[in-house]
């Protein structure tokens, strides 16, 4: 009996030991005193571009989002009809996403909430993930929370999604066999060729990435990181990426929303 247990332990330890069992860091978010937004790791010119509301290319999407927000489509009510002409009622809301929708029990990020409003309150079809219109509305809504500290609820029905996201963050994957935590917890601040590895926070998304030549969602960035380790990426908008988004938001707690960010 004891021997069987010992063998089981051996098997476990040799194949899939979680990092803490091999003396690696415990699975905790980074402590507050070292927590820094990705903006802190940018080259000065990229940081300056983000800081200038007139030069920041992300504002093309904010403006487009604002126009969409005010316009009723096909005779449906405009977002502004329910949420205030300048979106005033939504100020601060984005800082608390993702969250579990009380009615459906589903994990919703901003994109999901907007599509829910379209379906339930505007009788319009959902917008496709990563489409310019959904990015524009998402960026506009997130931008209404600029400066607001990220603060999400990971208790109750959200707890299982938080665990799912945390598991993904600490699991090695891909041909290169790397976990998110290995780059963003253990090696942030170091140089991966031209990039300084940041702590991997999502508080500036959707963000304009120079490499994309367009604005993109957080899920698109996660997709890039997964492809970077030659893993099969998850679909944008999938429950897995939404769960990772929730874990990242909890991990970024207290950092201000910076949408629209500018990245290399």
């Amino acid at each position: 009996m004891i021997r069987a247990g010992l063998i089981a332990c051996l098997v476990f330890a040799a194949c899939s030991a979680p990092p803490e069992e091999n003396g690696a860091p415990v699975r905790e978010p980074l402590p507050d005193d070292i927590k820094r937004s990705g903006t802190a790791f940018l080259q000065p010119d990229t940081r300056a571009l983000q800081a200038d509301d007139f030069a920041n290319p992300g504002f093309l999407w904010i403006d487009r989002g604002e126009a969409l927000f005010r316009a009723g489509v096909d005779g449906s009510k405009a977002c502004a009809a329910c949420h205030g002409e300048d979106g005033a009622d939504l100020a601060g809301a984005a800082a608390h996403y993702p969250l579990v929708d009380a009615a459906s029990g589903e994990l919703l990020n901003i994109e999901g909430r907007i599509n829910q409003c379209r379906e339930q309150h505007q009788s319009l079809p959902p917008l496709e993930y990563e489409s310019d219109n959904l990015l524009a509305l998402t960026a506009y809504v997130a931008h209404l929370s600029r400066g607001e500290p990220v603060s999400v609820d990971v208790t109750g029905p959200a707890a299982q999604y938080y665990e799912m996201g945390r598991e993904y963050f600490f699991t090695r994957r891909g041909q290169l066999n790397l976990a998110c935590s290995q780059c963003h917890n253990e090696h942030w601040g170091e140089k991966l060729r031209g990039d300084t590895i940041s702590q991997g926070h999502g508080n500036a998304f959707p963000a304009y990435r120079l490499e994309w030549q367009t604005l993109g969602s957080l899920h698109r960035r996660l997709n890039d990181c997964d492809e970077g380790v030659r893993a099969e990426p998850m679909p944008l908008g999938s429950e897995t990426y939404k769960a990772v988004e929730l874990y990242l938001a909890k991990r970024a707690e207290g950092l201000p929303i910076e949408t629209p960010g500018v990245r290399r």
Partner: protein
Amino acid sequence: MRAVSWAMAAGLLLAAACGNEGSQRLAEPVTIEGDAILTPLGGETGDASRGKAVFTDREQGHCVLCHAVAGLEAEFQGNVGPPLTGLGDRLSPGQIRLRIADAQRIWPQTVMPSYYRTGGLNQVGEAYRGEPALSARQIEDLVAWLSTLKTQDGEE
């Protein structure tokens, strides 16, 4: 006697549990002696000048992502890993071979990929399944080039 059979049972269990999809850990079976693989992979003979290209090319090893070598003409060499300047003075070809083929065997928590590993991996992209990140020849080319890196007198 009984202890031996228990150990064997454990060994079998280990093999069964770790060999994800029944595949072995590396692209070919290797013999590890100490912290080295003494026999060239795939029976290949490395070429140092090709190895230098494997080290810097984005489409190949792209080792400069994490490692710098003093005097190497390549932009933006990373510092996630230690500099490999003068590596040939510190490590034998066999030791370098194991570090490239399977760094994770030496340092289980390392961020350095195991370039000859195919087994026991998770969520590997479809285009990469069953293939090691570098071929036997590319690794032998790297071993050949890295072994030539010596610290000149008076430098470092």
